[in-house]
């Protein structure tokens, strides 16, 4: 793969690679080839190596392990350096950042990609931070919190009192570990995604899909008969309407986690796209005068993204708690639950 622009940008299309020899020799045409769409898509997408920055013609890149499984060949593990610049290793090559085999057989790619590496890093950060917080409680017992403990305590208490207790009710305690983990997982990864060189993990559909799936599974496994009664015999609805209502309610069960998935993915990805678009303006206009303006806008969006980072974590956690609350509530209140499938639609929040 060849990065056609200095600092931060690289082009990734097959055509760009095909025209590599031409492009490298003719510097003048290089910036003409600058394609903001491709650059941005590359940035918000995943890759098999962690490219930090490029100085002149030198790329500062961390090559991550490639782990691939093919039915015939079994497991192959090697550094992604072997695949750099379009090279072929063990019959595998990268095509649009996708691992494909030369003979066209199916490849199961379990590589530690940039996102997976970032995911592991965030897991480590989460474990280190919150075991440190827990140590504070072990050390000080019921005394006043100090240091990192006092920073996270109000947030934990907020999630407990304002999110879990209010949305789930008396049975909230069982769901606290999941809600807290989801909240801090999303928040920390949102923030890590905003750092220079960071991966766009929470803006990746696979990650948000799995988070939404966890919420769906927890909701379904903790649902009681009221929840199902509401779906198959919605109270206050005439019997004749049930053939219409049941499919609608069933779709609602899946739309709720689907909206969770899309909301988080779209919000975080959109933030990255907007920031990168403002930066791209400099290269589109090829004018230094645009730089202060686009940097100011980029900075504004970035600061806004800091807010969005915690806001999205809060919304995801709150909606998860509300869905769980709807599934476990004893007394059925028709107005409270499912007022339109999904209390806060993406249009309402951000």
């Amino acid at each position, binding site marked *: 793969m060849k990065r056609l622009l200095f600092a931060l940008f690289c082009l990734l299309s097959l055509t760009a690679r095909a025209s590599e020899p031409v492009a490298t020799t003719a510097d003048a045409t290089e910036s003409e080839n600058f394609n903001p769409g491709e650059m941005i898509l590359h940035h918000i997408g995943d890759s098999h190596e962690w490219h930090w920055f490029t100085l002149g013609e030198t790329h500062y890149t961390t090559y991550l392990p490639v782990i691939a499984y093919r039915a015939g060949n079994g497991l192959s593990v090697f550094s992604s350096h072997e695949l750099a610049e379009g090279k072929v290793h063990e019959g595998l090559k990268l095509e649009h950042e996708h691992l494909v085999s030369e003979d066209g057989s199916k490849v199961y790619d379990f590589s530690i990609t940039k996102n997976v590496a970032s995911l592991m890093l965030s897991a480590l950060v989460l474990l280190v931070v919150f075991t440190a917080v827990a140590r504070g409680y072990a050390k000080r017992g019921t005394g006043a919190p100090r240091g990192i403990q006092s920073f996270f305590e109000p947030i*934990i208490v907020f999630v407990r009192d304002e999110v879990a207790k209010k949305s789930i009710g008396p049975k909230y305690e069982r769901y606290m570990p999941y809600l807290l983990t989801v909240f801090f997982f999303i928040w920390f990864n949102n923030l890590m995604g905003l750092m220079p060189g960071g991966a766009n993990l929470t803006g990746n559909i696979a990650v948000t*899909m799995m988070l939404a799936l*966890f919420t769906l599974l927890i909701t379904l496994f903790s649902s009681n008969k009221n929840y199902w009664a509401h779906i198959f015999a919605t109270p206050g609805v005439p019997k004749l309407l049930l053939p219409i209502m049941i499919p609608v309610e069933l779709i609602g069960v899946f739309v709720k986690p689907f909206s969770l998935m899309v909301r988080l993915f779209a919000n975080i990805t959109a933030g990255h796209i907007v920031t990168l678009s403002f930066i791209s303006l400099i290269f589109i206009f090829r004018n230094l005068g645009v730089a202060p303006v686009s940097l100011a806008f980029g900075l504004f969006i970035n600061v806004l993204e800091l807010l969005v980072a915690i806001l999205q974590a809060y919304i995801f956690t709150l909606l998860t708690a509300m869905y769980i609350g709807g599934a476990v509530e004893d007394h059925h209140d028709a107005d409270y639950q499912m007022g339109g499938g999904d209390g806060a639609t993406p249009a309402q929040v951000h």
Partner: protein
Amino acid sequence: MNIVTPELGLIFWQVVIFLIVLLLLRSFAWKPILSSLKERESSIEGALRMADQAKLEMQQLQAGNEKLLADARMERDRLLKEATAMSNQFIEQAKTKATEEGARMIEQAREAIRNEKNAALAEVKNTAAQLSIDIAERILRRELTDQPAQQQLVDSYLKEVKLN
């Protein structure tokens, strides 16, 4: 579009790593943190309740003290009154007794005086009788000799006799 196609590898790692993080944080972070928070909240609540209770007890104690003090004051007044009454009674009794005793003693003295007087009078009478007999005897003896001399003798005798 590439960005809306979930990739198998990331799905796999996301599930594995998220579950590991969830399980580890649940047992090593959330449980101790939440239980400590609960413990602290209940201890604060308990302390507040105890403070309220202590205040109430203090008030009760104070009220009790005041009641006790008032009781004690009443008791003291009662005791003082009783003591005064008793002492007055004692004094009265003593006075009566003393008066009675005095009267009795005076009576006794009077009796004694009366007895003595009677005894003395009796003795005087006896003595006078004796003297009279003696004188009469001597007169009688002198008379036999000399009348004037007898008279003189009677006079001298009478001179000798002092009543009492």
